[in-house]
């Protein structure tokens, strides 16, 4: 019953070619178990319950080969969790992860094969081992997976470094010897080393200066052509996603609220949350702007609002919004939105 409204969405994705990666009604719940003291207190009749966070709540998302999908949301909306689930770093609490229509085994349980999905992390400082040289950071995985022979490791790494725009001398350096932009390039080379078909980029350029950000975005686009890559590009930056993505998906508090081709979404945003986001993104427009804010803040995912998650902040909220979860329906070709304002 609960997921009935998703049928239409699945049909819509199925009507096209089969997606490369499909997340079908996936959910992720983080449960904080009771500690020993709480368990004893419960024995004596205290009303204690485990706390559950619904980080991702019944999301369906299909990404087609060669497509760049931008995933936008505020911090705490579950976009990174969804990205990590796509890579296989998080197990699924519910739902299925399909690769070319076949169920994928979670990472760690698969043997003798490398994942076709790789991840580029936000903070390359935290995701690169500070005690390894670039030679091993980039070259270890392809050797382990048997993609290159051990004695060809250096040559292989060098060719990758050249591809991401780093000097050959980088081979023997440690991560701390690079600038932020170069470190981001090492992170990209590491992801590319195992010849993935699909890259999940989680805020990959958020920590970079504007001029460096443009360089790295250009690199992402060049690599897309060269390696026939498919991207799930997670970001909070509407401008970056607009430039890069073919299709944009907006998340709010664990659910997808709107999805549309990029031009359509930016020119005709349907969901009040998307409209608010677009109105508030700072632009290079010099006329003195009065900032009209979406009221309030993201509610706690520990106790999400009933019905439509956005209703406490929504300027158009009506009685129905607090009771009934809105359907995620197609309002224009390829344009989906979950809002009660779109008809019955």
């Amino acid at each position: 019953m609960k997921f009935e409204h998703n049928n239409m969405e699945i049909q819509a994705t199925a009507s096209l070619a089969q997606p490369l990666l499909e997340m079908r009604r996936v959910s992720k719940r983080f449960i904080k178990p009771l500690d020993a003291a709480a368990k004893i207190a419960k024995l004596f009749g205290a009303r204690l319950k485990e706390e559950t966070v619904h980080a991702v709540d019944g999301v369906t998302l299909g990404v087609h080969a060669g497509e760049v999908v931008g995933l936008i949301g505020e911090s705490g909306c579950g976009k990174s969790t969804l990205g990590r689930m796509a890579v296989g770093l998080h197990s699924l609490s519910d739902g299925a992860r399909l690769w070319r229509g076949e169920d994928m085994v979670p990472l760690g349980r698969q043997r003798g094969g490398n994942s076709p999905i790789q991840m580029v992390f936000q903070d390359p400082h935290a995701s690169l081992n500070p005690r390894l040289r670039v030679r091993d950071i980039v070259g270890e995985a392809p050797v382990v997976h048997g993609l290159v022979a051990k004695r060809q490791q250096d040559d292989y790494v060098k060719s990758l470094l050249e591809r991401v725009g780093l000097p050959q001398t980088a081979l023997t350096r440690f991560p701390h010897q690079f600038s932020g932009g170069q470190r981001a390039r090492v992170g990209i080379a590491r992801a590319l080393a195992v010849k993935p078909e699909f890259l999940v980029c989680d805020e990959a350029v958020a920590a970079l200066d504007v001029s460096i950000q443009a360089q790295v975005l250009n690199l992402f686009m060049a690599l897309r052509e060269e390696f026939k890559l498919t991207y799930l590009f997670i970001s909070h930056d509407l401008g970056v996603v607009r430039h890069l993505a073919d299709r944009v998906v907006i998340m709010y508090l664990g659910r997808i609220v709107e999805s549309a081709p990029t031009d359509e979404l930016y020119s005709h945003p349907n969901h009040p949350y998307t409209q608010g986001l677009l109105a508030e993104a700072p632009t290079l427009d010099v006329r003195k702007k009065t900032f009209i804010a979406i009221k309030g803040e993201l509610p706690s995912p520990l106790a999400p609002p009933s019905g439509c998650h956005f209703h406490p902040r929504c300027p158009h909220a009506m009685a129905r919004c607090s009771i009934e979860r809105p359907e995620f329906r197609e309002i224009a070709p390829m344009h989906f939105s979950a809002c009660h304002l779109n008809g019955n």
Partner: protein
Amino acid sequence: MEKPVLEVKNLTTHFTSRAGIGKAVNGVSFSLKAGEIMGLVGESGSGKSMTGFSIMGLIDAPGKIVDGSVRLNGRELVGIGEEQMRSIRGNKIAMIFQDPMMTLNPVLRIDTQMVETVLAHQNVSTAMALQIACNALRRVGIPSAGERLSCYPHQFSGGMRQRVAIAIAMLNNPELIICDEPTTALDVTIQSQILSEMQKLCKESGTALIWITHDLSVVAGLADSVSVMYAGRIVESGTVREVIESPRHPYTHGLLGCAPSRNVRGRPMQQIPGMTPQLLQLPSGCAFRDRCARASELCRVAPHLVHAGQGHEYRCFHPMENTREAA
């Protein structure tokens, strides 16, 4: 002519280390009128934060202000004693940091911290100070301010914490507030809430504001004037309209070109080649010349300041053409 609240002249801050002298702030000059909002824009390492810290007198060894003057309402701040500086800091000038936890003490309640700030500079009773604190929280848009006063910082969300930090900065009605990337870590919806609060508060109280950021698009909607820093120098300054619509310095032009909204979707973005130079090995002359497409032999000498009229100034021998029609 209105007297400026803040006048910074030739401010120079150096960091001395075994490897050499790092010229973090290299002869920076600007002035600010009451109620004016100035955006100070630059990439990381350009010295924009150090300029803020220098004005606040918060430079620690091995850093030192070696030259220049900072005048607040005509009063010289460089070289005065620490005791005198303490009476000004938090009273006449306040600073808001990127991470509000730099302002807030995690083990003290908000009311304790706010009352302390008021009592340090004003001769009022504790009850009165509490009242002032409560009003300040209300002014920055914190709901049920009275109750939130007795909360600890960790009980607030990121955006609320930043509001508390702003409230503390405004407690003593300072003449100048320096904001160091206060909205960089926040979501767009929260950022726009805070920008609108700051705009309103400045207009109401006549406080001058220095808004330090790396994001020109934030400054575009908020500030009156903007100064662009590169490698310790202000390379271009002027009204927001002049600088953003008709940048003359190639660096400003490049920065604006890097914004995704200025690029055609699907095409490679414009980019500035190379990276910001190391402060210890600054090239002679114009620090930008290694990355600049217009650089020539002439650029080996430091370019002087060119006045282009209407307060628009830049340091470049080969400026971009004036794209605005000559009026």
